[in-house]
């Protein structure tokens, strides 16, 4: 059995967050395309939804773009009202991409 190690997504991928109302979308893009299947298996909708549970997120949908080697996560009700109603300094949720990048994945050592 080969060796593995646990790393934050930030070590192997990059991301960008955008908003529409109370919904956030966060892209996730591996630096190395060879990691695309591994991220597809480990960065599931359920794990991402759980990451944003403290903010009341109700649903997470992952769109896979294999040609682009990228994922798009759409997370509902995560922006505490969005720029319309949020008391958060970052009502647009632009910083949330780095919450996603703090999630850990297990990669070959």
């Amino acid at each position, binding site marked *: 059995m080969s060796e593995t190690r646990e790393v934050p997504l930030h070590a192997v991928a*990059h991301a960008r967050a*955008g*908003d529409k109302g109370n919904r956030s979308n966060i892209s996730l893009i591996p630096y190395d395309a060879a990691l695309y299947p591994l991220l597809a298996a480990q960065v599931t909708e359920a794990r991402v939804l759980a990451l944003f549970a403290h903010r009341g997120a109700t649903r997470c949908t992952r769109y896979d773009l294999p040609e682009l080697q990228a994922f798009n996560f759409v997370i509902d009700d995560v922006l505490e009202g969005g720029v319309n109603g949020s*008391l*958060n300094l970052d009502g647009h949720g632009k910083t949330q991409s780095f919450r996603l990048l703090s999630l850990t994945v297990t990669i070959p050592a």
Partner: protein
Amino acid sequence: MTFLVGNGGGFSGDRVDAPIPVVRSLMARGLPAAMFFETLGERTVALAQLERRRDPELGYEPMLERLLEPILADCFRARIPILGNFGAANPPAAARLVARLALRLGLPDLKIAVVGGDDVMGSIALDQLPVHEADGSIDTKSARLVAANAYIGAEPLVEALRLGADVVVAGRTSDPALAIAPLVHHFGWSFEDWEKLAVGAACGHLLECGSQVTGGVFWDPGFKDIPDPANIGFPIAEVTAEGGLIITKPEDTGGIVDLRTIKEQLLYELHDPAHYITPDVVLDISGCHVEQLGKDRVAIHGLRGHPRPETLKVTASFEGSWLGEGEVSVAGPNALARARATADVLLRRLEMRQLGVRARVDLIGVASVLDSDDGALWRGYEGPEPPEVRIRLAAEGADRDNVDQAAREVLAMLCCGTAGTGGARWRLTPRILTRSYLVLRERVPTSVMVRSAREMVG
């Protein structure tokens, strides 16, 4: 034959010197070209409408003169039309400003188009329209309407270019329309050629946020480094009649265009990648791929387009509640305990005074932007002692005075607070609430008026 589209600004508040190297690059390359500016966020038009109420000659992009002055003469002489939604809530006044600027620069024959029709506040009854995007916080029965604007498409912008406009001043348009229009005008693409319009929409989508595709919002020191981030070059697209699309930037600038910047911006603010709805075409990037052709040059392949929707999006803005914010700092030994105590006392004070506001406390430096309204992250924080913490209270409510009083509780902590509390700031701001509707496009007639600078203000 290649046509170049340059972007000179991606939001109201962008770097005002950004257009200069873009125009210099377009001129040096000598190909037919256009420049566009996207300066209108979802709320910007409502804030501009409030500005216009105060002064009928205001209500457009406040940096407009600063943005255009260094490039206007060059663009006019090189026949590079400039398009922008910088007219905001008052395109005619913005056009007069451009005309005065043109006269001052010795360009009396510069032709300026005013595109109208997006402002539907007086013409469409919103309560009879299907709601597109909303949240439960808006009671539109009692809220006072500030602005209602339709996201119009590229057709009136093309008409303005056809009439010879050197500067096209619009209010609310779809962002991609600002790039689609000069392409349709130059190549003579049909408004039913969905594959070509998809290329135009992707071009607009990639360029509309300016530096976000050339290294802005991207750089992450040590992980995603970019050259000279103080001087990021804004993007230029190379588009061919057949629908080829390449993104690049001026050579003498910082920033970077590579597969990573392109992928991040392609997916920015997208939900279903197969259905990115614009007034002119539904863009589908689900099968697209990207190719690095050289330094700072990336081609986008495999874009698809589907027929445009029958409806346009109308975003209405309402006067909302009040937002009060206050901040103080603590630092040095035991800062975290003092910050936590300050947070608890602030919330207790709001309760004691029965101010009836919704409130939240952040411990900036421990957890704030990633936290929730109940402070789940900072309350559960077990990490190392932070060297400094800034405590922020945010309160919202319908009653201005109560919200103001809530924010001032932070100020009072200067004397009543923990040892070594300092650096208080507080402010009160009105909130703008938005709600989006769908309206049949034929209910939004547009208009185009073109005049020379001399005719407009001479």
